[in-house]
């Protein structure tokens, strides 16, 4: 873009004391060198005299309070460059207070409730403690989390279940930061499951929107699921080993065989659906084994031994 070129901003406006429904107002902001989304918001407030509510503080991707939704994608206003046409809205999955302000109380209380601090029960040597890079590797990136809540606002499971049913990726990052720490001695298995981590549908939206570049799914959610499954804290832990068994048996996964293995007699629950699918030719009870099955079985066994 060139200097002075007009940027069209469609701003979300909502004042609960005046408006019944939210509405949008359109403003034009001249482009300035190295302009960020926050620059446009500040220009509107300072130069155009628009009276609207938004949060900003540090301006350098550290405080995590200027999260907004620009053209449908959650991002930090201070960090993302301006786009020629922008629709600026408050974050999803949070209660909207006014204009771009969202209510963070429930979110903050949730994180606080997880007790994201090191729990030490046994005496330790004191500070500084001897600890290697390799030991800190699982939590190394997670401590970068600035609690901006972008991942939680992008999460479809939070959208469907609310923060009460599913604490959201941001909370899991804070929990994983301690649960995966080798020094931590807290009882966290049940906390992980109770916060609904198995409602995570592995869509990776959290990873994509993180302004700190944390791979939320692979570094926080997956290891915690692994922890809860390996310690049998989760009631559906059998599903995961059943998949391995089915692959070892036939190389491919036939959903019929898998469901029978997981649910046992209770597979009857899905009988209606199974009959319908069978009628359409979508399911087969017996499956021809994959020609490479013995090789696949041996590879999995070798990897199990190494573990």
């Amino acid at each position, binding site marked *: 873009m060139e200097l002075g070129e007009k940027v069209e901003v469609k701003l979300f406006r909502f004042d609960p004391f005046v408006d019944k429904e939210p509405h949008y107002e359109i403003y034009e902001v001249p482009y300035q060198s190295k302009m960020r989304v926050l620059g446009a918001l500040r220009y509107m407030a300072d130069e155009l005299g628009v009276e609207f509510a938004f949060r900003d503080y540090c301006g350098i991707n550290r405080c995590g309070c200027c999260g907004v939704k620009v053209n449908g994608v959650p991002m930090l206003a201070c960090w993302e460059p301006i786009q020629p046409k922008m629709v600026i809205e408050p974050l999803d999955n949070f209660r909207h207070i006014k204009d771009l302000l969202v209510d963070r109380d429930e979110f903050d209380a949730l994180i606080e409730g997880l007790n994201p601090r090191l729990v030490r029960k046994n005496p330790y040597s004191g500070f500084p403690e001897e600890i290697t890079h390799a030991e800190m590797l699982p939590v190394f990136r997670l401590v970068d989390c600035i609690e901006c809540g972008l991942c939680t606002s992008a999460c479809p499971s939070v959208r469907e279940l609310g923060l009460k049913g599913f604490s959201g990726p941001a909370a899991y990052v804070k929990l994983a930061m301690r649960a995966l720490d080798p020094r931590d001695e807290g009882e966290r298995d049940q906390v992980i499951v109770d916060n609904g981590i198995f409602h995570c*549908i592995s869509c990776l939206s959290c990873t994509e929107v993180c302004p700190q570049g944390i791979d939320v799914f692979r570094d926080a959610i997956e290891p915690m699921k692994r922890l809860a499954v390996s310690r049998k804290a989760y009631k559906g832990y059998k599903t995961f080993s059943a998949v391995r068994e089915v692959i070892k048996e036939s190389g491919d996964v036939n959903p019929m065989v898998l469901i029978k293995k997981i649910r046992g007699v209770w597979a009857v629950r899905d009988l209606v659906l199974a009959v319908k699918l069978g009628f359409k030719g979508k399911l087969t009870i017996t499956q021809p084994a*994959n020609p490479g099955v013995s090789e696949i079985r041996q590879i999995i066994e070798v990897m199990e031994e190494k573990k």
Partner: protein
Amino acid sequence: MRIAYYPGCEAKMVAKEAHKATKVVVEKLGIELVELENAGCCGSMDLRIDSMDATLALNGRILALAEEAKAYKLLTVCNTCAMNLNTAISIYNKDEVARAKLNETLSVYGRRYNGTMEVITLPWLLLRLVGFVSMRKATQKPLNHLKIAPFYGCHMIRPMKFYGFENSMKPSSIDVMIREFFDGQTVNYIGKSSCCGFHTLLTEEKTSTSMVSYLLRNTVTSGADCIVTPCTQCHTSLDTYQQKALKATSENDFEVPIIHLSQLVALAIGIPKEQLGFEKHMINPLRLLESKGF
């Protein structure tokens, strides 16, 4: 061009019509397709939890098989397979130590992975490898009467660092394809980059079905006739569980046919609809297609 084809369990066991349609389409476009018949499962998201090492080794094996078949690229029609294979690629193509360890395991069976394979999905194949000119030439039946809601599925677009193909939160490849190649109409709807909920179907079914009904509701209110998806798992979730999902949210006054991208492309390049297995769908799209003149 010689492309290796890895269908994945879902296409082999459930969405057999996509398996067939993909083969028909790619062969009609003049590409040689080699199916990796002894490839086996990629591990999905479940084996990853159980054992990440085993998942990586299985995917490494699939990549080695594709190299063995002397293929230029590896095509898969399942998004999660694409992501798992890309996870393996991100490790084995760069890290020689990890590759040596993999080859140690594979050498027992006389296989070896040299770190040269790349994974592609159907939109990638059509947009990048076949290209605009050949696709326009191949198009025989424009899709201009259908209002299509493209649904991408998560693992084809995220994580972006694996693909670098399109914007991971605002995908557009299938929209572009339908509009530019086949003169079709696409609709924009909320939740285009959202999830179909497949990966919790076995553990937390309610979460999955609520995702399904959210998507169906949004596509219907945006005026779409059908949903088109490139992923076989998304198809299973949206099609097979559609009635259950709409019943759970007590919205059983509508239904949305879900069409595989391969089937749609096949229709556009003039393959008769009788060959494409539409009767296998739970929500039969044939009535819609016939009313639109196919």
